[in-house]
């Protein structure tokens, strides 16, 4: 009898701890940050809008998220949608170029020797540096922004794909050799599926960077989107909207990462 009670108690205690960890603790953390924010804006940073003020001024943009009142006066989710569209374009280009380059890098010593150094040099270049070059190349802000996203978000896909290809177990390649699979079949039936979990980690990191870059790209080109809106509201002195944009960018980035995380997990257990 006592054993059962103990077991039940342990269970409910565990459930309690889980609830605490999943909901209560994050809420406490968020509450603390909001409190600090209020305190800051109430005391020494007078131009920093308080949480209540931010909510008040941002309200129309949140409660009517898809409203279009003018080119630069639209609901926050509508702006987000524009940004996502741009990100998807740049990210797709990044993957379409990055994955094959990664494969070449992983498979060919010659290719690796030739291109790995230049890749390592291009990789840390900031989006702020690529964007002017994109403007010079394409003359228009839209393709320049997409070019910048592609250039910056490509590298994790390239490097993780190369890593995945090099990590394909020799045993699998021996199976291909004994069965005399053609080079193409070895590539698509053995190497690609074996490298896919690594590649997916690269895709996930690439998407994170693509989203990071969008704000910079839109700020500099003034294109409508979350980043463009943020910069415009800074110039219009509506600082509440800057905070609205920051929070939106954070939430969307987190959402994208979770989405990729779920897909990645599925792939690993498959």
């Amino acid at each position, binding site marked *: 009898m006592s054993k059962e009670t103990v077991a039940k108690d342990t269970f409910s205690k565990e459930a309690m701890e889980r609830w605490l960890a999943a909901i209560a603790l994050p809420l406490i953390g968020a509450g603390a940050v909001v409190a600090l924010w209020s305190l800051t804006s109430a005391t020494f940073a007078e131009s920093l809008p308080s949480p209540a003020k931010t909510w008040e001024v941002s309200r129309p943009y949140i409660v009517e998220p898809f409203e279009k009142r003018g080119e630069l006066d639209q609901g926050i989710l509508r702006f987000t949608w524009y940004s996502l569209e741009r990100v998807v374009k740049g990210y797709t280009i990044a993957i379409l170029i990055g994955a094959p380059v990664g494969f070449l890098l992983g498979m060919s010593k010659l290719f690796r020797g030739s291109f790995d150094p230049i890749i390592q040099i291009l990789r840390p270049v900031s989006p702020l540096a690529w964007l002017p070059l994109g403007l010079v190349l394409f003359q228009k802000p839209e393709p320049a922004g997409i070019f910048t996203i592609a250039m910056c978000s490509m590298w994790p896909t390239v490097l993780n794909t190369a890593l995945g290809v090099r990590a394909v177990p020799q045993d699998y390649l*021996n199976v291909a050799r*004994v*069965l005399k699979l053609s080079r193409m079949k070895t590539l698509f039936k*053995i190497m690609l599926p074996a490298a896919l979990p690594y590649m997916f980690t690269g895709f996930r990191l690439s998407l994170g960077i693509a989203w990071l870059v969008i704000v910079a790209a839109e700020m500099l080109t003034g294109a409508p989107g979350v980043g463009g809106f943020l910069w415009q509201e800074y110039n219009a002195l509506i600082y509440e909207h800057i905070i609205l944009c920051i929070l939106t960018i954070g939430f969307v980035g987190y959402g994208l990462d979770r989405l990729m995380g779920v897909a990645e997990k599925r792939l690993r257990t498959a």
Partner: protein
Amino acid sequence: MTTPSLRPILSLRGVSKSYGTTHVLDDISLDIEAGEVVVIVGFSGAGKSTLISLMCGLDQPDSGEVTFKGSKVTEPGPERMLVFQNYSLLPWLSALDNVALAVDQVFPGWSKEKRQTHIDRFINMVGLDHARDRKPAQLSGGMRQRVALARALATDPEVLLMDEPLSALDALTRATLQDGLERIARTSGKTIVLVTNDVDEAILLADRIIPLSAGPRATLGPEFPITIPRPRERRALNQMPEFRHVRTAVVDYLLSTKRGPRPAAAPAIAPLAVPSLEPAP
């Protein structure tokens, strides 16, 4: 020692192989006749896997040559199918698809129905019909090796090479699969070369046993023909004088190769009189 025959199916002539400064195999000669089951027994790390890789063509000898039906082996091929020590199943494919990958590759001329029937037959043969759609991660070690065996047999190789196929399994599973291999050896009529470190397994399966001496510079010892009639039954085997005689002889030979370096293998420079920190081979 091996009776020279007119046309051995697989033949090794003075084969030696080194990796870096380690001289693994030394002057190995062996003729394998079509339809016989040859089991090579040796210590772990003696170079058994290297030997089977050379026969398969995954690796090339430094000197000497390996020939298959008279022509030199330069690359692996499905006519000399290898059953890998660690199964080497592709983890993203189901048991069925692992077999299908091999069958589709080796019999591209067959109709889809014929290939499917063929695949089903071998999945059934190893008793995995109920688990055909499972991924390797959802299979036990013994089941995985049975899939690997089905994959190898389904390609209908002329020589079936097996690299310690059962060494990673627990004793009971191992015994069950040994009985399965005994049945395959008896009924398939295939030429089989199997390497193992288990002398009992060797006697159960072999037409002849050839010991591989302890490495480095491992070489083949005198062969032991096994004339115990098939089917061989594990429990009956234990009672047979021939079984016990061969078992003792093989083990004695193997141990004798391990005691100290043989004259041929004596190092050219006398070793320093310091305690060796290297683990025993």
